[in-house]
């Protein structure tokens, strides 16, 4: 599902951020992406979400070479994945409901379908009853869960999470992780960037470890 083939990412200012990274995540596989800060985790995720293109090597997503994807194809590639951001990236002038509904509205779902799915997603992240609130009225953990709900509401085949449990207490983190493994069991590919070592060791998932831009464990 996600295939990195000798990917190198070079910036003019900082040099190589990723060096010759190769790995393959199959459909329905779950993996942690870990490494010290600055190891290239975020860059790797940005290559998957086609916010950037690799300097060398190929990134293949669901059989499609992202390096060759045309600009107008990018929205449709991005709809295949639900992305959870460390800084949530919520719209602060819209309600929780509208935030979660955004991917569905963009994909052109009707009002009834949107309502139904948003309700289901809210229920899944334990935010039922908060749909009319604005993100700033919520705690950090709740905002994070709004972000998670938004990522999964469209039932994407791929879920990418950048430090999804950074703002959650251990119990809630465990629940979110449980949620991810539920998705994985029905064939969703999940990649979680995290340096929550206890969480990673606790769950016996595959670990991709980056060190100074090189993949040391896969």
């Amino acid at each position, binding site marked *: 599902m996600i295939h990195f083939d000798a990917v190198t990412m070079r910036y003019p200012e900082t040099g190589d951020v990723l060096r010759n990274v190769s790995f393959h995540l199959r459909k329905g596989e779950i993996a942690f992406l870990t490494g010290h800060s600055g190891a290239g985790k*975020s860059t790797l995720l*940005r290559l998957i*979400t086609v*916010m*950037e293109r690799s300097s060398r090597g190929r990134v293949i997503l669901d059989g499609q070479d992202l390096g060759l994807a045309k600009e*107008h194809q990018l*929205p*449709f*590639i*991005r*709809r295949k994945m639900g*992305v959870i*951001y*460390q*800084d949530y*990236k*919520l*719209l602060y002038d819209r309600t929780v409901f509208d935030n979660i509904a*955004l*991917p569905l*509205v*963009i*994909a*052109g*779902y*009707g*009002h*009834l*379908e*949107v309502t139904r799915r948003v309700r*289901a997603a809210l*229920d*899944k*992240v*334990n935010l039922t009853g908060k749909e009319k609130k604005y993100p700033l009225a919520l705690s950090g953990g709740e905002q994070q869960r709004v972000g998670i709900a*938004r990522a*999964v509401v*469209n*039932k994407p085949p791929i879920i990418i999470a950048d430090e999804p449990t950074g703002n959650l207490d251990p*119990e809630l983190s465990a*629940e979110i992780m*449980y*949620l991810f493994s*539920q*998705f994985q*069991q*029905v*064939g*969703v590919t999940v990649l979680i960037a995290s340096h929550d070592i206890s969480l990673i060791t606790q769950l016996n998932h595959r670990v991709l470890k980056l060190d100074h831009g090189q993949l040391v464990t896969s």
Partner: protein
Amino acid sequence: MKYSRKNQARKNVRESSLRQAKKQTKIAGGDFFDRLHAYRDVHAHALFSSLGRIVAEPFNSIMTISVLAIAISFVSGFHVLAVNIQQLTEHLDASNQISLFLRDDVSEAHANKLAESIRKNINVQNVKVISREDAAAEFQTYSGFGSAINELEKNPLPIVLQVLPKKSLEDKRGLEDLQKEFQQSPEVDVAQMDLQWIERLRSIIDMVKLFASILNILLGAAVLLIIGNTVRIELHNRRDEVVIQKLVGATNSFIRRPFLYAGFWIGFISGIWAWFIVTVLMLIVRQAVEKLSSLYGGSFHMLFLSLTDTLALIAISSLLGVLASWTVVSYQMHSTKLKKQVRLQK
């Protein structure tokens, strides 16, 4: 208590994700009509949310829209001016006449006889005799020197025959020939043709019209630029939103849509505002103009913006709004700036 609630919550999570898991296998998407309604909803949302944003910042909006309305009201003001001048010159066409000032020694009876004979001329449509008394009365009414004429022993004004040539005699040559013919008759002191100053007036009007069209083009460009700049600032303020929408898979047209509607609203409201400005100014000016017109003996009724003109005015300004914002948003989306923004975030 707390523990059990958490446990319940966890159970909920588990159950709902199982439900979700079962649905996962189904292909996403509603039926055709649901999608059609969704498309309509998205447009309706963009239409009203963009209006909402304009209303939400009344001070900024009023300033921008007023500037635009003033520019647009100049354009429509020139149009109204042109329409009215046109109407004025049409009046002049009707009175495109030759005035024959008769010699002092010609009597009233003789003048009437002369008028009768001129009427028989195939090139003449009508002749009107203005007697000395009529002329004096007219002079008294309109000149403001009414009392002066009473002081004189004898009415100094000549009898005038106003000859209205036939419409068929439109070219200048024919009129000139007619004037020469009249000039030669012994009773006529001066045969004066009104055509000459009408021509001068017409060329002045043509020049004014040309000037107005140039100014209209400039003002149209100004309207485009002002709306474009307003939309650019709006785009800048909502950059985070644009980035997030891109991240969750929005197409360029989805991102562009609310800005197009914003441009539409700005143009639309400015158009209405401009109509209001022009109409109010015309109401203020009307009395003065009609008084002036009556002093010249005319019955000039000022023409306001017609319904068609008004609709065209609003349609054009709305269209300019859409055009301006389309240009700006498309340019910004294709320029590297926005891409860099996407790239440089965290």
